[in-house]
C-alpha cells in the first residue's frame, strides 16, 4: 500500500488479525457451497445421507453422472443452453458493435437523437405482459428464435462499447478514409482489432448472462425439446422429480441413488461450465466491470 514504513501498534495488530480471520470466513462462505455440492454429487447416496460429508466425497462414485448421461432430457437441455449461449452471444456482439460504432463518430448528424432514443429504453419499459403479447404476435413463442432475438441488444453494453470505440484515436480512422477505406472496412480492420479487450469483456457479459438467464425459457417456451438447462434444473429441484429422470435407467442402480444426489449432480453440471470459463476469464471480467463503471 505505502512505501513509508511505520510500526504497528498492538491494537492495530489485533484488528488486522480480526480482519484476516473475517476474510478467511468470507472466502469460505463464498466457495464452500459449490464445493459441497460437487462432493455430494460424487458421493455414494447412502453414505452421503448418513452424514459426515463436509470436505471430501464419502465412498466416491460417479453413478449419478452415469445415470444422468443416460437420460435424454439433460442432453437436450444442455444442447439448447450451449446453442443459445453461443448463437445469442454471437448475434449480440454483431448488433452491439454495429450500433456502437456509428455512435462513436463525433461528426455523425443525428447521433444524439439516436442515443436518446436508445437510452430512454434503459429508463422505462413496457413490462412483462406487453412484451409477452408482442412475442406472441410475432409467432416466436415456442421457437428457438425467442432465445436469440428479444434480448439481442443491451443498451447498457452498447454504451460501454461506444465509450471504448470513442477512445480510439480519430487520426487512425481518418488516414484509412484517405486511403479509400469505407466505414465498414474501418470497423472491421481497424476498430475491432484495437478493441480486443473490450470484446473479450462483452463476450463474457453476454455469454454469462445468456447461460444464466432463464426467464425467456420460463415465459415463452413450453416445448420440452426447447427447454434450457436452468429451467430443467429448476424443475428437478422443485418437483421432487429428480428420480423421474431415472426411468430409463435400471432399477438396481436407481434404488441406490436418492433424490438428493440427483439434484446435487444436476446443480454440479450446471455450474461446472461456468466455473471453468470463470477461471480463465475472471481477470477480464473484473476489467470489464471497471470499464463499465466509468461514466459516459
Amino acid at each position, binding site marked *: 500500500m505505502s512505501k513509508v514504513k511505520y510500526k504497528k501498534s498492538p491494537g492495530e495488530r489485533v484488528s488486522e488479525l480480526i480482519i484476516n480471520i473475517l476474510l478467511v470466513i468470507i472466502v469460505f462462505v463464498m466457495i464452500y457451497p459449490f464445493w*459441497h455440492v460437487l462432493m455430494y454429487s460424487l458421493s455414494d447416496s447412502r453414505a452421503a445421507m448418513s452424514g459426515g460429508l463436509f470436505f471430501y466425497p464419502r465412498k466416491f462414485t460417479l453413478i449419478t453422472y452415469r445415470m444422468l448421461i443416460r437420460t435424454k432430457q439433460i442432453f437436450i437441455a444442455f444442447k439448447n443452453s450451449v446453442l443459445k449461449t453461443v448463437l445469442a452471444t454471437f448475434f449480440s456482439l454483431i448488433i452491439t458493435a454495429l*450500433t456502437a460504432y456509428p455512435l462513436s463518430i463525433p461528426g455523425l448528424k443525428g447521433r444524439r437523437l439516436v442515443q436518446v432514443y436508445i437510452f430512454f429504453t434503459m429508463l422505462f419499459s413496457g413490462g412483462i405482459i*406487453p412484451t409477452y403479447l408482442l412475442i406472441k404476435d410475432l409467432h416466436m413463442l415456442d421457437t428457438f428464435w425467442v432465445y436469440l*432475438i428479444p434480448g439481442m441488444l443491451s443498451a447498457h453494453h452498447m454504451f460501454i462499447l461506444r465509450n471504448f470505440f470513442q477512445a480510439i484515436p480519430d487520426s487512425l480512422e481518418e488516414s484509412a478514409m484517405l486511403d479509400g477505406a469505407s466505414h465498414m472496412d474501418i470497423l472491421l480492420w481497424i476498430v475491432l482489432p484495437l478493441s480486443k479487450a473490450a470484446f473479450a469483456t462483452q463476450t463474457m457479459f453476454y455469454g454469462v448472462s445468456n447461460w444464466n438467464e432463464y426467464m425467456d425459457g420460463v415465459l415463452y417456451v413450453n416445448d420440452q425439446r426447447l427447454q434450457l438447462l436452468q429451467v430443467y434444473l429448476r424443475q428437478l429441484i422443485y418437483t421432487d422429480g429428480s428420480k423421474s429422470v431415472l426411468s430409463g435407467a435400471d432399477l438396481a442402480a436407481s434404488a441406490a441413488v436418492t433424490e438428493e444426489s440427483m439434484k446435487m449432480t444436476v446443480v454440479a453440471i450446471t455450474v461446472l461450465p461456468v466455473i471453468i470459463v470463470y477461471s480463465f476469464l475472471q481477470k477480464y471480467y473484473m476489467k470489464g466491470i471497471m470499464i463499465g463503471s466509468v461514466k459516459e
Partner: protein
Amino acid sequence: MNTTERSKWKKQIGYFRRYWMLYAMLIPGIVYITVFKYVPMYGVSIAFKDYNGFGKIAEAEWVGLKNFRRLFETNAFRRAFYNNIIISLAKLVFGFPAPIILALMIDGIRTKWAKRIVQTSVILPDFVSWVVIYGLMYAIFSPNTGVIRQVASVIGYNGKLPNLLADKETFRAVIVGSHVWKGMGIGTVTYLAAITGIDQQLYDAATIDGAGRWQKTWHITLTGIRGVIITLLIIRIGHIMNAGFSQIFAISNSAVVSVADIIDTYVYRIGLTQGRFSLATAAGLFKSVIGLVLVLFTNWISKKVDPDSGIM
C-alpha cells in the same frame, strides 16, 4: 437554385456519401429497439383497456383507470407492493454497505497472492444463476439432508431443524442474505478501482504525521471514494422498485408467497398464469412509472450534489 443553395445541397450529398454506411449500420439496432422496446411501450395501453388476450389491442374497449382502481382494491396487489418496498429497502440497507466494507478489507491485504485468492473467490457467485443458487441453498439449508443437519449431528443435536427456505419468518432474510452473498463480491470491483485512483502520497504523508490504519482508512480511503459511493447509492435508489424478479422467481415457493410476492411475480402470476392481461399490465405500468420518476428524481439530486455525476 442560387449558388449558396447549390453548394449547400452539394455539401449534403458529400456528407451523405461519406457517412451513409454509418447510417446503414445503425438500422438493425434501431429496428430492434423500436420493435422490442417501443412497441411494448405502446402495449401498455391495455392497462387502460379491457383486453383478454384475444384479438387486436387497438380494438379493445377503453376503460380509463378502472384497472388501477381494481388493483388497489386487491389485497394481493397491496401485499406485493408492500413486499416490494420492504424487500428492496432491506436489500439496500444490507446490500449497499457490504461491498464497501469488503473492498476496504481487501484493499488492506498486503500479500499479493492472498489478495488475488480473496478477489477471485468473492466474485464467483456473480457467475451463477439464481436457480443454481437455490440449489446451493438447498444443499446447505435442507433440514433433512443439508449441511446444517450434518453440523447439528456433529454437535449432537438430532431434533427438528427449521426449514429456512419455506418458513415465512425467515424467508425475507434468505432473500436478502442470498442477495448480499451474490452481489457483495462483484460490488467491490468498482470501489477497488476507485481506491486505486487515490494518490499514494496522501497515505505516506498521513503516515509521517502519525496516522494509524483506521485514521487513514477513514480520512483518506473513504473520503477518496465518497463520490463513487454517492453516485452508486443514487443509482441504486433509482432502481428501488426492482426487488429482484429472477431471484424471487427462482427461490420462492407457495409456502412463503405472502412474504415474498413482489410486483413482478404478481404480474407474472395474474397475467401469464391467470390470463388477466389488463390488470397485470396496470400493475407493471404502476411499477415502471414509479421507477422512472425515482430515476429522474435521484439523477436530479445527484446533479445538485455534484454536477459531473448522474447518469444523464
